[in-house]
């Protein structure tokens, strides 16, 4: 829509308000991170990167985040398919449960893991879960559980089940049909959900902080490293890791924008098909 001409004072005010809001909340912190990191030039940054705890924290973060994303993509797609293609008792409840991590405080989520799997907890596991990698993985998975189903379900819902039925009558098993007919139609949504999941997993702090114990060089993730660096007055270390995570986040944002354009192309293509019918 074109703006009104001549612009009223109110419109100017509104635009200024929005720009100010974005600046204070988004641009200023990014600027501060870049500025803070390079305050004393590159040398301190390189020194900070030499810290073995830092590289371990980054490594651990990537391993955990990629594992959590992989598992959540697999289960998330299954959850979506079950929600959209099956009718059963408790379907609505499951639909609701999927959204729970959105509204649940991550700290509480971490705490419940301790209650469940900690020493003297409800379930006594044969190997360490809490204050160890399995618990951290579970915490990350919990926090970003909704992203894949929330991206994939709407795509599946708009997908006609008839091509799947056609595949069945042609002799294709459910798995073959899913792999060759359903997946190619929903992959953009799956990847979009995966990118969101990865972004969220990389930046996760609360749940993992509670469940990991934050042992330096053992269970310390990148965000916990930043938190510790700040309390240790290691400003350069905190800034450096922040900049790295921030940079990755921006990169993921670019990928997401591209994916969204892809989704629109698919939608237009479908619309075109409808228009010539």
């Amino acid at each position: 829509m074109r703006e009104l001409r001549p612009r009223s004072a109110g419109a100017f005010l509104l635009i200024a308000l929005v720009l100010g809001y974005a600046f204070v909340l988004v641009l200023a912190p990014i600027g501060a991170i870049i500025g803070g990191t390079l305050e004393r030039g590159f040398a301190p940054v390189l020194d900070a990167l030499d810290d073995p705890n830092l590289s371990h924290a980054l490594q651990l973060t990537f391993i955990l985040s990629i594992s959590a994303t992989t598992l959540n993509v697999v289960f998330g797609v299954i959850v979506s398919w079950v929600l959209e293609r099956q009718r059963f008792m408790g379907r609505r409840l499951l639909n609701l449960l999927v959204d729970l991590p959105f509204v649940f405080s991550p700290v509480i989520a971490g705490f419940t893991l301790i209650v469940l799997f900690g020493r003297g907890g409800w379930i006594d596991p044969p190997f360490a879960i809490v204050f160890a990698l399995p618990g951290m993985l579970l915490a990350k998975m919990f926090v970003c559980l909704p992203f894949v189903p929330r991206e994939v379900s709407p795509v599946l819902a708009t997908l006609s089940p008839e091509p799947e039925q056609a595949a069945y009558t042609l002799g294709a098993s459910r798995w073959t049909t899913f792999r060759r007919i359903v997946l190619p139609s929903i992959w953009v949504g799956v990847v979009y959900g995966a990118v969101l999941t990865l972004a969220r997993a990389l930046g996760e702090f609360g749940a993992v902080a509670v469940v990991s114990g934050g042992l330096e060089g053992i269970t310390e993730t990148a965000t916990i490293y930043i938190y510790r660096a700040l309390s240790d007055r290691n400003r350069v270390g905190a800034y450096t890791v922040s900049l790295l995570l921030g940079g990755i986040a921006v990169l993921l944002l670019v990928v997401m924008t591209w994916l969204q354009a892809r989704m629109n192309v698919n939608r237009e293509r479908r619309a075109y098909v409808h228009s010539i019918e």
Partner: protein
Amino acid sequence: MSIQLNNVNKRYSTASNARYAVQDVSLEVATGELFVLLGASGSGKSTLLRMIAGLIQPDGGRITLGGRDVTHLPPQARDTGFVFQNYSLFQHMTVAQNIAFGLTVRKRGVAPMNRAEREARVAQLLRLVELDGYDERMPYQLSGGQQQRIALARALAPNPAVLLLDEPFGALDVKIRGGLRARLRAIQQELNMTTILVTHDQEEAFELADRIGVIDQGELLEVGQPTQLYRRPTQRFTATFLGIANLLPAHRNSRAVHIGGQQIAAPAGTEALEGQNVDLMFRPEEVELAHSVADLRGQYVGVGVVESVSFAGAMERATIRLIDPLPDGVAVGHPASMGHPSAMIATETADIARHSTAELPLIQVVLMPGAARALEIARGQRVCVGVRDYTLLAKS
């Protein structure tokens, strides 16, 4: 291969009540036959078709394909080709990949085709649906009619035992439907493929079917050849669904049919209705109009007044209000003020103006232009009405 259904049932239960989508349907379709299931939307015809394909599980009954009981087999094991109204092509695959899909899927007891065999089969099917050279097109580059032809080729590729078509022309332009129907019929006959086609379009059913099954509210009411169902329906629903039906209350005794004071010969095959009140059913094109009873070649049923005449291209349509004899059950003697006598009729036929003309039966007539010109019929005119071909329906 033949298709046999025995007492097939499907209930849909809602929170408040369970209702039959398909109720006790039994049917046998012979090898090579093209059977059309005709019904309005929501009549259960698509549900029945999907149960044959295994896409919906019946609640009861037996489904047999070529002597093999498939009632509890999944769709993968039934060997049916299915064509959907909205084509449902695999949008991310080329035309060739779509057609080859059923050939690349591993099936029990069947050796998978190698690449060369597959390509040959795809080429053969593209020739069959007359879309040679379209191999590498994507579905969205095709028109609706072309997509449906590819969907047909895809369904036929694995050489199924039976072909099931669910409103295959429903989403297409009226203009291209005719050509596609003819092509489908030719392919079906060439392959001698046992086929069930579901439609709500009676014209389509007449054009394609060896036999038609009329289905309403989940029940298969009547099965027969197109001409038989059109000319000699035994059910009121069939009579009215398969075109325009004129219905006059009548009574059949041992030899004749009485319509008011008139009597006409009882049609053959209606002996079961002897001694009953019935409806005389005849089609608009079987009505004959004349200036005197002597000019009629069909059976005279009474005198009517022309209510309307309209030009409809290749023919003319007329509506006649039958005024004499007054059929049984029509009340007479109402003062004119209580009925709705049209001014036109009142002037021409003063003797019936006292009756409530709205209660007198209307007859739909289709006249060839020549006949209409020879008669010089006009609104308000009195005519003698005859019927050439008619049948009787039991009172429901």
